[in-house]
């Protein structure tokens, strides 16, 4: 498990680009295609911004990210906050569903994560926080 990486950073939108860049650096080790790299960055971007916006209500708080390869070409990414949590996970994951009262959020964050990664699992408890675990198999050269 030498390739495991644990990251802790403040859950504010200013850190969204950094979260993506770290994910890109990690996944690059497996020689992904440009498209796969973009997909991973996008999924991480969604999960991280959800933690900052919904989990911590834009007031900040610690976000933990964990990266691991479960096999040579399969990456697992876990993004965790200790924010407000989600009442109804199944509903939250529905396309277009958002609790945002403004007109800024599309309700498509989870849908993007689901479509760009192979598997996604959401663990959450109201008042305790949320953990999003995503898995993606990469089409590395070795895999051909």
């Amino acid at each position, binding site marked *: 498990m030498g390739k495991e990486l644990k990251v802790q950073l403040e859950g504010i939108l200013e850190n969204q680009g950094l979260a993506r860049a770290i994910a890109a650096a990690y996944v690059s080790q497996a020689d992904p295609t440009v*498209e796969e790299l*973009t997909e991973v960055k996008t999924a991480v*971007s969604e999960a991280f911004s959800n933690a900052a916006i919904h989990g911590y209500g834009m007031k900040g708080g610690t976000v933990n990210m964990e990266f691991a390869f479960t096999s040579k070409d399969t990456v697992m990414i876990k993004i965790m906050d200790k924010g407000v949590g989600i009442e109804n996970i199944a509903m939250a994951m529905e396309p*277009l569903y958002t609790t945002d009262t403004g*007109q*800024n959020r599309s309700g498509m964050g989870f*849908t993007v994560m689901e479509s760009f990664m192979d598997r996604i699992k959401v663990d959450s408890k109201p008042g305790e926080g949320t953990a999003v675990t995503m898995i993606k198999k990469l089409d590395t050269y070795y895999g051909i």
Partner: protein
Amino acid sequence: MEIIFNVMGNTLIAELLGELDHHAADSVRQRIDSALDNYRAQNLVFDFNKVTFMDSSGIGMILGRYRKMGEKDNNMAIVGCSKPIRNILNMAGVFSIIDYYNTAEEAVEVFDRKEVS
């Protein structure tokens, strides 16, 4: 994210440069809205050719402008998306309400033809 505004007739072309994420989206929204007001533009074209990254924040940004403009009799178009960006916009059904063109010129031409007819 940088925005370069360009006016062709009644159309405001917003050329976005860089990464469009939830962090950038707020300021992008504001700058586009005030440009729309300033130029009293009737039509709006988003040029995504130089957008290097976009997450679902782009959906909200585009649909928000659509709602705002749609109240009047206006036109909107999107041009120059990379494949992953087109994927995201597709997931939300954006292209079923806003047309996609390859270039801003093409979009402006279509708008002009609409007005004549």
